[in-house]
């Protein structure tokens, strides 16, 4: 009755915002930085992208602006945590609150207007969905097969050792934070430009927090992030489809399903990896710790 292909197509666009945000946060956390401001960067990107898309008439310029906007607010976090050595958890939470407020303020002139339509990509799937799919192997390759990825991981695992080897810990981390901001910005803009086509305050509605959770449960791997985002998006879409088809399953159970299924599967994945690879789990060794070169 419900054909799997249509579910898969819905899943792709439903999971795109969290996929972008989670891939960005993956890089940030692998560099040893815990940025809880994902929601704030997403909403900033959602507004910046929408505003530019509306004014210029080009959705693609909008996405470029979203990446810039997300990266710009994330640099505030970078200054606080990398130069002023502020607590990362508190700074990240502040970034979320700041982003939500800032976007609400500057978003006032853009309320009630509509974004320009997007030209669909191959197979009538949105270009940004394709971009998200391409980013997964790219990030996997970068982290596991490239020199740059090795340095980034080194900085995240043990910043003192990386520093002793002559790597600029601060610079690597600022780069990672800006990349995370840009990715979160694109994820947020996908909601405003491609899904809703309008700007409304608070429109990301907690997607950033789900992205954060997916990074942890994915055991800090790109493939894990993809599985998590698809699973969450997929079960969300499936449960709504089952409701629409009038299947007699308690709706509360269906609504709960995306969260439950995502947690169970990702816990299973991370448990397996934990036992097979190394003790102490896959969390980057210096995650959430500030680095000071004089220590």
């Amino acid at each position, binding site marked *: 009755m*419900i054909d799997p292909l249509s579910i898969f197509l819905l899943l792709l666009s439903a999971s795109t915002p969290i996929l972008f945000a989670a891939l960005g946060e993956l890089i940030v956390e692998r560099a040893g930085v815990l940025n809880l401001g994902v929601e704030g960067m997403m909403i900033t990107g959602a507004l910046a992208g929408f505003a530019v898309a509306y004014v210029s008439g080009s959705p693609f310029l909008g996405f470029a602006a979203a990446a810039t906007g997300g990266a710009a607010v994330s640099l505030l976090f970078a200054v606080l945590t990398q130069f002023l050595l502020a607590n990362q958890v508190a700074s990240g939470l502040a970034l979320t609150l700041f982003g939500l407020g800032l976007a609400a303020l500057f978003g006032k002139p853009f309320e009630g207007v509509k974004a320009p339509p997007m030209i669909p990509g191959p197979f009538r799937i949105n270009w940004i969905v394709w971009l998200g799919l391409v980013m997964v192997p790219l990030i996997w390759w970068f982290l596991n097969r490239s020199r740059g990825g090795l340095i980034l991981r080194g900085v995240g695992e043990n910043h003192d050792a990386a520093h002793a080897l002559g790597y600029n810990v601060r610079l690597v981390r600022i780069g990672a934070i800006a990349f995370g901001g840009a990715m979160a910005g694109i994820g947020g803009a996908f909601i405003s430009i491609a899904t809703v086509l309008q700007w409304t305050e608070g429109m990301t509605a907690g997607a950033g927090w789900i992205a954060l959770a997916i990074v942890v449960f994915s055991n800090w791997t790109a493939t894990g992030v993809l599985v998590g985002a698809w699973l969450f998006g997929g079960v969300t*879409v499936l449960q709504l489809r089952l409701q*629409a088809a009038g299947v007699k399953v308690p709706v509360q159970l269906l609504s709960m399903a995306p969260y439950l299924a995502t947690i169970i599967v990702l816990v299973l994945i991370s448990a397996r990896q934990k036992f097979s690879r190394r003790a102490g789990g896959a969390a980057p060794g210096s995650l959430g710790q500030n680095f000071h070169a004089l220590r």
Partner: protein
Amino acid sequence: MKRRTLLASAAAASILTLAAPAFAQDEPLKIGFIYVGPVGDGGWTYQHDLGRQAIEAEFGDRVETTFIESVPEGADAERALTQLALAGNKLIFATSFGFMDPVMNVAAKFPDVKFEHATGYKRADNVATYDARFYEGRAVMGTIAGRMTESNKIGYIGSFPIPEVIQGINSSFIHARKVNPEVEMKVVWAYSWFDPAKEADAAAALLAEGVDVILQHTDSTAPLAKAQEAGAIGFGQASDMAAFAPSPRVSSIIDDWSPYYIKRVGEVLDGTWQSNATWAGIGDGEVVIGEITDAVPAEVKEEALALKEQIASGEYHPFTGPLNKADGSAWLAEGETASDEDLSSMNFYVEGITAAIPQ
């Protein structure tokens, strides 16, 4: 003697100075609002905030309003309400169903503060409730939906399975079926008042089921955007959502709280405010039908407007028998209309809707 007069006049003077501020009534009436969403949501909260602005425009310096936005339903609401009461607000509007118990708790602690709770059913000496008969507007939307659907499947995105939402589903379905006996209704619950991404997914799920008209009881424009992609139609909810006119948005239900807010603030100012339950509809101007666009054929538009007039004048009640419940049991006999008590506790679908309400 002299000394005594001096004392007496001093006493009189001090009494005068003490009494002066209270006598002069210079203090404006402080009015607080708590909103469930951001004022820029373009829907439910936006409309309440227009009501707040209407109060300021009407009473000017005699009132002072403040609001707290994006207050989650639950314990946080109690904190926000207490904060407003402690800040000296003498009239507080709580504008979401889920604020009901927090309002009751805080109202018990501040007997001299008057509370107005939207869409709830619990009252006290200092707690009044107010609501709009959205189902009247839904009857008009349902008529348009029934005429416009080609697949004979209409979809409804529900927020939470509470009476207010269930009335809307039933009312739309009854009137869609009245003009098109083949109509089927698909219902999806989003379990949120405002979550654009989820509302978009819900709309996509309905469209994939073959639905070509979408009604929504959630506040974002995401379902309209999805409807447009698929060539389906929908309706503005809470506010006009005119950016999506003439299609997919072919009409809308607009909540206009201003008349009620102005009336109640006036009553507090002249001391005649009383706790009661107000339930106003199209006839009172609280539920407004947004412009029906040219995407709708002229005769359908005429039919919808005629129904609107009948409801406004009180000549027709959207829940008029014969009507059965979904389980087949009798509800309203021929010509009988539903009582307000029946409506405000509605927890069943009418006959013809095959889905089940989450209990």
